[in-house]
């Protein structure tokens, strides 16, 4: 039975860790919103803006990925 409680803690902890993805999601939304507005105003630089947008998304996403790594660590490594 204690194994079950341990597993429950793991699962809940991993779920809580993934709450960090909220910020990353909001961040990606802001990045894309700004980039799309910039592209709309300045279609000539759409290529450059898109490259920078993807980079920005990757940085924002990496925060979510850290959360995911922590969650996966909790689930599979079992601290």
């Amino acid at each position, binding site marked *: 039975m204690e194994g079950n409680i341990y597993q429950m803690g793991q699962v809940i902890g991993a779920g809580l860790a993934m709450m960090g993805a909220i910020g990353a999601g909001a961040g990606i939304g802001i990045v894309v919103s700004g980039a799309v507005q910039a592209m709309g105003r300045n279609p000539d630089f759409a290529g450059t803006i898109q490259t920078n947008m*993807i*980079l920005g998304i*990757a*940085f924002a*996403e*990496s925060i979510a*990925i*850290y959360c*995911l*790594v922590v969650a*996966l*660590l909790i689930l*599979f*490594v079992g601290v």
Partner: protein
Amino acid sequence: MTASSNNRILGIKNRYLVLVLLIGWAVAYNIMPPVLVHIQLPPEELTHPVQLPILGKFAFTNTMAAMLLADLILLVLAFAFSRSARAALAAGARAISGVSGALEALMEALYGLTETNAGRWTREIFPWFATIMLVVLVNNWLELIPGVDSIGILHADEHGYPVQELAFGTTLVAGDAHHAAGGLFGLVPFVRVNSTDLNFTVALALIAVVMVQVFGIRALGVGYFKKFWNTSTLFTKPMFGVIDFGVGLLELVSEFSKILSFSFRLFGNVFAGSVLLFVIGFLVPSFAQTIFLMLEFGVGLIQAVVFGMLTMVFMSQAVVSHHGDEHADPEGAAAQH
């Protein structure tokens, strides 16, 4: 006729081929449902580990197999490219066709990108950028090869699944563990994507960050360390001097955090991707995994570009003096623009 022949494989139109494959996939799922393999962070060992004097436990892991595979692919690519590039040079810089042409176009784009950032240091920084980008890209895209992560040796595991003999091998099957006659087994794949091994990403991140410092020292000499230990304004401007000193210490911390963010960004993306593929393959066995493979294709490319580009940008920043107006390096400052 060429247009229609492009849409055919083995004389069958592609769409019908896709339909047949989907139906076959669904039928196979009903006969033999896929299992969720055991997920673990460290790479699986393929050989018995030996104890080395300083390094500790050492074994040939499946990520090392992926590393060798990726290295082999890169070697073949590089060799083919070098041959066609020499031929093209001999023929008066004519265009290269095929995969080598694509590689050349990629190299040209990366070189242009480096040139806009690094200026004078382009020729030194570009090889690091391109190597990191290519190595990470090939390692990431290994995930798309069928059989990677799914073909391997079985070993006895109490959390595993029963096995079933097939015509050309043995496979894991889902089933009641208690009624299994031959015991339970887990799968150790022969090849596991290198980027899901922290050793690879940390090694890359260490090399990248160390090379950033090396470039900084080569460009600015001992003056580079003033970025981290900034006492120049500590006594001239009491308040801001302290702040500058603190900023310098933060720079030092950020160099270490770069290693962490580099390695965990790549590792997390690819590892999460492969876990996602396992879970999707287990939950929706037919068709859905294809879409996520396409997603992994994009993620692999973006992570390779991001890793390489960040390294390049950090190197470009390192060769430029941090306080350009105080201890000037006109050449470095000019290179920045």
